[in-house]
């Protein structure tokens, strides 16, 4: 290779690297600025929601609304505001009836989230579903159903959770035909959500799931039976003891033990009760 051309090539590579370094350094400082702005939004929203709790007729100054609307226009701006609202909910522990719907509607956050539900990006849809159910935007619920068996694990998890949040035990009817595997978190969260809803008179959906061909659906039903001590499902669960699937048979054994324990007086054993509980309940069998 010609010496001069080689020198030019090396110089070009050096220049490219310098440009990469400078642009990355600049983005670090832009990001820092953005995190400061988000902090300001958090304070604004906290103050506004605080006033909403004190007064029945909350007032949001136009200045605040404009700041939030401006943030919403940015890419992932909806995420920043929704995140702050969810975080504030966790701190203030707002009941379902007192969700900050006024501010959500006023700045158009609900329609922004709805637009994201139609996105082609699985992550954005999952995020939109999560914010919809966490902020109590029930009108979006209908759109979750199409994603319950989606190939993206995060998306189908959020869609299923959303349905359970809004429909309680009725959420099981959307899981009867799922073929995609479930994560431990999906099961844990479904149980937590169901705890907030009263046990239905008929457990036909759970029974149907126990007859499913898909092992993960059976696992969820067994988990549910163990968690809520659904002893009436005895006849449907006992055949699972002979299942070829290790997790299914282990959960069925736990159900059997729970049944037996319910029919005899309890004996408290020594040691760390918390840990004993953890290893003996359904959770302990997840890694089998």
């Amino acid at each position: 290779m010609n010496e001069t051309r080689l020198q030019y090539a090396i110089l070009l590579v050096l220049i490219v690297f310098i440009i990469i370094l400078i642009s990355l350094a600049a983005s670090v400082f832009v990001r820092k600025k953005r995190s400061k702005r988000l902090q300001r939004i958090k304070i604004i929203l906290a103050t506004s929601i605080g006033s909403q709790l004190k007064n029945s007729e909350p007032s949001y100054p136009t200045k605040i609304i404009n700041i939030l609307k401006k943030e919403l226009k940015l890419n992932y701006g909806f995420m920043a505001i929704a995140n702050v609202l969810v975080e504030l909910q966790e701190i203030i522990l707002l009941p379902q009836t007192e969700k900050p719907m006024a501010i959500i509607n006023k700045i158009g956050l609900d329609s922004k989230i709805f637009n994201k539900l139609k996105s082609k990006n699985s992550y954005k849809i999952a995020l939109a579903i999560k914010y919809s159910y966490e902020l109590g935007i029930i009108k979006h619920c209908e759109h979750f159903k199409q994603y319950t068996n989606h190939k993206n694990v995060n998306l189908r998890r959020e869609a299923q959770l959303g349905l359970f949040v809004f429909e309680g035990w009725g959420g099981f009817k959307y899981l009867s035909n799922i073929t995609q595997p479930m994560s431990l978190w999906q099961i844990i969260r479904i149980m937590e959500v169901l705890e907030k809803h009263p046990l239905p008179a008929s457990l036909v959906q759970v029974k149907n799931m126990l007859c499913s061909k898909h092992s993960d659906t059976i696992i969820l039903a067994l988990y549910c039976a163990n968690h809520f001590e659904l002893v009436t499902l005895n006849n449907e669960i006992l055949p699972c003891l002979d299942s070829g699937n290790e997790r299914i048979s282990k959960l069925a054994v736990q159900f059997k033990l729970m049944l037996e324990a319910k029919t005899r007086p309890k004996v408290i054993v020594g040691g760390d009760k918390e840990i004993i509980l953890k290893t003996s309940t359904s959770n302990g069998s997840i890694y089998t």
Partner: protein
Amino acid sequence: MGPFTHSLDWFFLVYGIVLFSCYFLFVFFATRAIKKNKNNASLLTPNQIKGAKELPSISLIAPAYNEGKTIIINVQSLLSIQYPYYKLIIVNDGSNDNSLEQLIKAFDLVLSTTPIKAQPIKSAPIKDIYTSANPLYKKLTIINKENGGRADALNCGIANATTDLVLCTDADCIIEQDALIKMVRPYLQATQKEVIATGAGIGIANDSIINNGTLQTLKIPKSFIAKVQVVEYMRAFLVGRMAWGYINGLFLVSGAFGLYPKKRVLEVGGFDKDTVGEDLELCIRLRVHMERLKLPYDVVYIPETLCWTEAPATPKVYITQRDRWARGLYETIKKHRYLFYNPKYKSSGMLFFPYWVCFELCAPIVEFIGLILLILYIILGEINYSIAILLFILIYFIGAVYSALAILIYTYNFKQYATFSKVFQLVLVAFIEPFTTHPILLYAEMKGYFKKIFRIKSTWGTMSRKGFVTNKD
């Protein structure tokens, strides 16, 4: 110069191009992996995990050998971790100092009445087991055993754990409060693939201020050699391991902070006591085990720094550490050489292991031979100075830019070093490092290889520590 040296020149050029291309491919994969991790974290937040009623239980296992200087503060730190279901097992590996006495006094320890069971993995005999009489420390168990080395102590801890997962760490590590919450996420999110190991970023806390066992103020270390290691760790953990994790090719989950399913670790017989690179060896063995069982698996890395440690602050200790790492790498590669281009082990055998052999094991050797050749060329006057200097500048600059990119990616994503002065200091270190500590590193690695090649008996090596800066207020 003959055709042999001409071929060698081409070999070095191609080797360098491939290696640097891999590095920049790593940067690309690492940024994708960090983004994926952030997306997962935004859908499954630490707060949600913290609030969950049912989570896998974890045993935190920390071997301690003559850690008297820092043992109390470190155990306090390990006890203050936020996770609803965890136990802390400190394995006193036959310390000659007063570690055990200090622990007994500080944590109201009493001899456990539970009889010592038969161990599922062999380890040096257990002398006694202590638990705390103080309900505040009910999570704590101390196993006092005869000395058997780090791997042996970890095996003893794993054998005595009663939980789903085991987190192997060191007693001299400061672990972030929410570390377990973040570490457990891959296990909670897993579907088809079983997570067989999870690691996370490890940071350097020399000269930083520790308060009540937690990192209060992170400072850039005063010692230059420790400063260099901050950059090294960013490069290795944030870029290297994240990239390998992204393509499920991770072979190493750091011994200082790795979470494993207990069942799988017991199946493979725990850590190998015959190597000083026991973390790398276990990870490879776990992968091989899953390949043989024909089960899908994943080794996951978390980009956040969740564990802080004290890095060697003097060249002598640094050389001891890197010499040991080089020996560990050599031993492990030699032990698992059957993997090399073995299609039975799929990508692990055909791609990831050959990379480790060619670019992790052989890179110092290639560099060493290259240096000798360079000196020879200079002596023989067989060098084109204008091209050589330009190439030298290019190689130097690529190396420094790679480090600077790691620093900037870290700063972009995490707040720990996100001040102008810290970034400036670290970038400066990245540009000075090739002339200062890199030759020391090369020397240490070659020393380790020579010890192995010429079968010179060597041990773990003494790692003298200064101890963390603590704030008693």
